[in-house]
């Protein structure tokens, strides 16, 4: 775990929102890294500071009083079937609902068409990659056959074109006046 990874997770770690396995890594990093530990403490302390001095307002009684008065004039919440009654009695409402339904349908159709198109895009995206890979596979087996006469010979793996990528010796950023070149 490096400082960047740790830093991004510090607040979540403080809030207990990190899975145990990662939290353990962070905890260890904080033990070793002074700057991250300092940042962790500052995050913790500033949050405590805010919490301590934030203060809370008590709701004034008027809020409930006004609320209660308004509710008394309203229909009971569970009565949602009252909508139909309202619609049947009111032509304008019915017309508005029909219009709304048509708009919804149109939007739905548009959405469906867009979905179809993006699905098509996805398919051509996929096929592009598959084609490329298939060509690579053919080239690959051709090369293998040329080299060994039988593409199924596993030993071919040992002598494949790719060298061990980790065998590079010289790190690029390295500039050491004391280094000796052994010839």
């Amino acid at each position, binding site marked *: 775990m490096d400082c960047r990874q740790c830093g991004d997770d510090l607040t979540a770690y403080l809030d207990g929102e990190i899975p145990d396995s990662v939290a353990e890594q962070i905890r260890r990093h904080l033990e070793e890294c002074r700057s991250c530990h300092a940042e962790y403490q500052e995050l913790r302390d500033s949050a405590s500071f805010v919490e301590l001095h934030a203060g809370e307002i008590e709701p004034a009684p008027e809020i409930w009083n006004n609320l209660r008065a308004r509710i008394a004039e309203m229909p009971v919440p569970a009565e949602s079937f009252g909508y139909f009654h309202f619609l049947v009695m009111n032509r304008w409402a019915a017309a508005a609902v029909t219009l709304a339904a048509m708009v919804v349908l149109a939007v739905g159709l548009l959405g469906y068409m867009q979905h179809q198109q993006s699905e098509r895009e996805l*398919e051509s995206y*996929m096929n592009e*990659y598959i084609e490329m*890979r298939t060509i690579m596979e053919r080239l*690959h087996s051709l090369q293998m056959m040329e080299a060994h006469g039988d593409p199924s010979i596993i030993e071919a*793996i*040992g002598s494949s074109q790719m060298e061990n*990528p980790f*065998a590079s010796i010289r790190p690029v950023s390295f500039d*050491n006046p004391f280094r000796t070149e052994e010839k």
Partner: protein
Amino acid sequence: MRFGSLRLRRRILSRAFFAFMLPLTLLYLPAQDLDLKKTKSVAESQHEIVIILLGKKEFVRAQEEANKIFQMKWPQSQEPVLLKELLWFSDKFLDSGQPELAVRLLETNLSTFKDNGSKAAIWKEKGYLLKRMGQDDKALDCFREAQRLEKIKLRP
């Protein structure tokens, strides 16, 4: 005779010089470069181990050993190298007739990669493998995810 002893002396001197100076030079190495060197040399051996196991057809073990390469502590600068390595190994498993292990290899080691481009490449390869295995629906999902990641990458 004299000539020979001179050469011998020079050789001893250069060996001593090297033996003495090398630890000193290590002190001057920036800590990160030293870590990276160590990690790379471990990965180098691990890479050879996987190849040997593949040759011996011990495919499950080969996949487990390959995983270890990606679980090591790498700086993000090494991601392109690791990506190439992952895809190369996956290909080897495919060649050996082990597409399921190739898929498992990709799934297990996806989380090592932070760059969306790398992740997209891994999803695409996984999709290709699943398609080869006849799991068309799952394959499509993989490409969908890759596409999504590539779009995020392009956003400014």
